[in-house]
């Protein structure tokens, strides 16, 4: 079904759009807010902040997360920092420059109006978090400290050691707890969304499964927010938490929501390399390490000497060589591809040859081990634990890994999906990062959406509706519950011989090989046929076991992996459609002579919005053209 896309971008100059939009939106009177129920699914930075803020405003909020506590959302694992255009360093930063860097970093595949608003709100986010007691790093004079990050030439990243995500999430969790205590938010942990309730074309609620008791329940509301994170786990090995999944957004897709740019997956350059077949997950090393770490490989292919035995003259600091002005701080997509290129050419280090050195030696010499320890201590401990090596003594080995998904549910300026009443925030939506996300901008987007955008735009939506009451016996509610129950029964009736994890691992390998850092037309076509065959086998030969009415972790996984199969196919289709290279999407057929991405703005300057065909099998593409009125389309150059 072709979608009718209206991004609802306010008119006027870009720096006035958000203010003028806020000035004109409809308000709900304080005494009426409590009569409106808003559901928030996912309570990480975006969802936690949204639920808390909506609760403060007086709405009746119901929040859900699959973790046993909202404090465990995967936002907690974000390490490096959060950007804000405060210009405390007086190094030339401004809202416009953050906007510009983000548009350019995203390789001109994001929406100007949204990105400008993000840069504008970044300033308030820091104020808000400090007021909540988030213990950001400070200078001796008591003022906030900053560091630099990939893709920018100013220091605008605020941080709390290597645990910035943790501290920001604990701030949002605290705000959420305050509202739970006051009774404005009803929290449902250990609960997973199973289906949507759509009445008269509008999203009116969700069906959930209590992960401890198996109880299927429905919850009705005036508006629903999905803040359910990203889908990197489609690759099986990724830096996402094990439970991160695409079920909520995929159920929305099945109900007609548009899915934008699904193939834009960020491959993070500094993850700990895979060590063997047993591996379940990849661990990130914050790219803030690139501030003080120099990245290199030996000059000689297959050089097996210890790094300390390789003299300076026999090392290739390839990022500094290829990108002299950004060097080790070049953006993530560029740093990732450069690492893969060196490893594929035979210069990789470590037992599997899939690694490059991130070397802190020079910085330790210059600044002392104490300073490095204060900046990155927890990261380096983590590395030592996992690898068994001491990063203070020997260079760390790193390799790119699937990390963040820029694609997601299509949303308009109000963060509403193509299903009226269904909103998407944070990583679950597609809006702000384009084809590549710069470092320290995911935390910013999650909090901007949750604290500062949804509280306004949901009110605007709710104020304009006159929604009929939907009771538990409503036909659509019953139908949604039946679908959820039928799905559980179907999984439990599978009596094959292979675990769900087995199929997930094989799917992940196909996705990584064919739809990962490099893509080709032939490879993507191969992937599509392989995934179709594997999906068929998954439904024939999986074994789940256990009961519906209990804690059943295999059943949980089955539901998630089934969705990853379908989403994986759509990702390949999207990558196949985009006959250009941009940001994280690198099609080998489209590159410059020196191996850089070759964008085709004439043909592909759009967000690719996919929707399900009427037959429920095929997919339709609707294009949202992108206009660049404030930053001119230009080739990204970090040299």
């Amino acid at each position, binding site marked *: 079904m072709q979608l009718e896309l209206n991004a609802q971008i306010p008119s006027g100059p870009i720096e006035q759009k958000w203010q003028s939009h806020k000035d004109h939106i409809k308000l709900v009177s304080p005494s009426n807010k409590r009569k409106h129920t808003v559901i928030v699914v996912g309570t990480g930075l975006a969802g936690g902040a949204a639920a808390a803020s909506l609760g403060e405003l007086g709405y009746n909020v119901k929040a859900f997360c699959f973790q046993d506590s909202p404090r465990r959302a995967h936002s907690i694992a974000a390490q490096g920092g959060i950007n804000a255009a405060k210009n405390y360093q007086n190094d030339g930063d401004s809202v416009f420059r953050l906007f510009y860097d983000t548009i350019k970093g995203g390789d001109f595949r994001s929406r100007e109006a949204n990105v400008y608003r993000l840069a504008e709100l970044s300033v308030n986010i820091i104020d808000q978090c400090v007021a909540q007691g988030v213990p950001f790093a*400070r200078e001796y004079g008591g003022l*906030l400290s900053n560091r630099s990050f990939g893709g920018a030439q100013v220091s605008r990243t605020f941080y709390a050691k290597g645990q910035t995500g943790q501290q920001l999430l604990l701030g949002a969790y605290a705000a959420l707890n305050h509202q739970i205590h006051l009774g404005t938010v009803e929290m449902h*942990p250990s609960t997973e969304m199973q289906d949507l309730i759509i009445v008269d074309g509008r999203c009116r609620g969700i069906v959930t499964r209590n992960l401890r008791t198996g109880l299927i329940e429905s919850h009705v509301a005036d508006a629903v927010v999905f803040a359910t994170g990203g889908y990197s786990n489609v690759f099986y090995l990724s830096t996402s938490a094990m439970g991160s999944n695409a079920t909520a957004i995929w159920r929305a897709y099945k109900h007609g929501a548009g899915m934008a740019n699904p193939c834009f997956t960020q491959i993070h350059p500094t993850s700990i390399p895979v060590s063997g077949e047993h591996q379940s997950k990849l661990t990130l090393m914050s790219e803030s390490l690139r501030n003080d770490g120099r990245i290199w490989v030996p000059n000689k292919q297959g050089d097996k000497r210890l790094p300390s035995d390789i003299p300076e003259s026999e090392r290739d600091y390839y990022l500094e060589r290829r990108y002299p002005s950004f060097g080790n701080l070049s953006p993530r997509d560029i740093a990732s591809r450069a690492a893969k290129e060196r490893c594929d050419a035979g210069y990789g280090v470590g037992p599997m040859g899939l690694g490059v050195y991130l070397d802190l030696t020079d910085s330790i010499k210059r600044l002392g081990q104490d300073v490095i320890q204060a900046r990155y201590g927890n990261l380096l401990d*983590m590395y030592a634990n996992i690898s068994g090596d001491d990063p203070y003594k020997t260079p760390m080995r790193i390799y790119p890994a699937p990390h963040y998904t820029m694609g997601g549910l299509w949303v308009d300026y109000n963060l509403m999906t193509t299903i009226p009443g269904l909103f998407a925030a944070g990583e679950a939506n597609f809006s702000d990062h384009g084809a590549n996300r710069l470092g320290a901008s995911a935390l910013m987007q999650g909090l901007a959406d949750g604290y500062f955008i949804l509280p306004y735009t949901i009110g605007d939506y709710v104020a304009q509706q006159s929604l009929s009451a939907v009771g538990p016996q409503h036909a659509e509610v019953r139908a949604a519950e039946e679908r959820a129950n039928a799905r559980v029964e179907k999984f439990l009736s599978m009596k094959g011989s292979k675990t769900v994890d087995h199929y997930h691992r094989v799917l992940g390998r196909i996705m990584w090989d064919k739809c990962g850092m490099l893509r080709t037309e032939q490879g993507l076509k191969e992937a599509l046929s392989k995934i179709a065959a594997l999906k068929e086998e998954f439904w024939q030969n999986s074994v789940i076991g256990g009961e519906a009415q209990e804690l059943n972790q295999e059943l949980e996984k089955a539901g998630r992996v089934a969705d990853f199969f379908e989403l994986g196919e759509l990702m390949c289709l999207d990558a196949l459609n985009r006959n250009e290279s941009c940001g994280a999407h690198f099609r080998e057929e489209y590159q410059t002579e020196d191996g850089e991405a070759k964008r085709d703005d004439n043909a592909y300057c759009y967000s690719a919005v996919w929707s399900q065909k009427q037959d429920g099998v095929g997919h339709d593409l609707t294009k949202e053209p992108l206009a660049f009125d404030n930053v001119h389309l230009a080739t990204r150059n970090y040299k």
Partner: protein
Amino acid sequence: MNLTLFVWRQKGATGEARFEKHEVHGVSSDSSFLEMLDVLNMHLVERGDSPVAFAHDCREGICGSCSMTINGRPHGPKSLTTACQLHMRTFKDGDTIYIEPFRAAAFPVVRDLVTDRSAFDRIQQAGGYVSVQTGAAAEANSIPIEKDLADEAFDAAACIGCGACVAACPNGSAMLFTAAKVTHLALLPQGAPERSRRVLSMVAKMDAELFGGCTNHGECQEACPKGISIKYIAQMNRDYMSATLKKARTIRGKVRAQ
């Protein structure tokens, strides 16, 4: 490496419970403890047996989900390490390993190794926040905070809420957890206005949730994967004392005023 596991199996909070013996073979010393359990579960599922339920999510040592007692120690033998970051190279070929849920009256078993730690959330809900409305916060640099104080607040705030402190404590006390939060906010100017109310209500909630009292065993600090110091317990006790006195004075003051 080959290992003999004794794994706690319990169907529900009140269900029958026992140790179940399993032999696992060919475990890679590079794999994590949870990846070793993944292998065990794969074999169990393929055989049609029920897999061992355990809580886990980030597998990076930061979400605090993975709660289990390994050979009698919460999160296992290695200090400053969560179960998910415990690697099999810590063990020897042929070892026997006992795996149990965190044990505490306030943490009922949900199934196998999974416990219900929602009491921690309720302690936080009793006051572990700064009451600030979204949207109108003052400029962040308008209140400078001494670097040492901010660093100390961060160290206290680094608690991951895993519950190892409770499991390690002979009294099942949640003092280390509560003290970490209380101290984090007490050290910062933003948390100051609610400081007294916060400590009183969080401690009261902690007692109401069936956590035991602190009798200075120090086991909590030993078990804490994030190295949260028991000095925060002392800090909280001082805060609690002064808040109690302040409250008493306030009540007397009100009586006089009438």
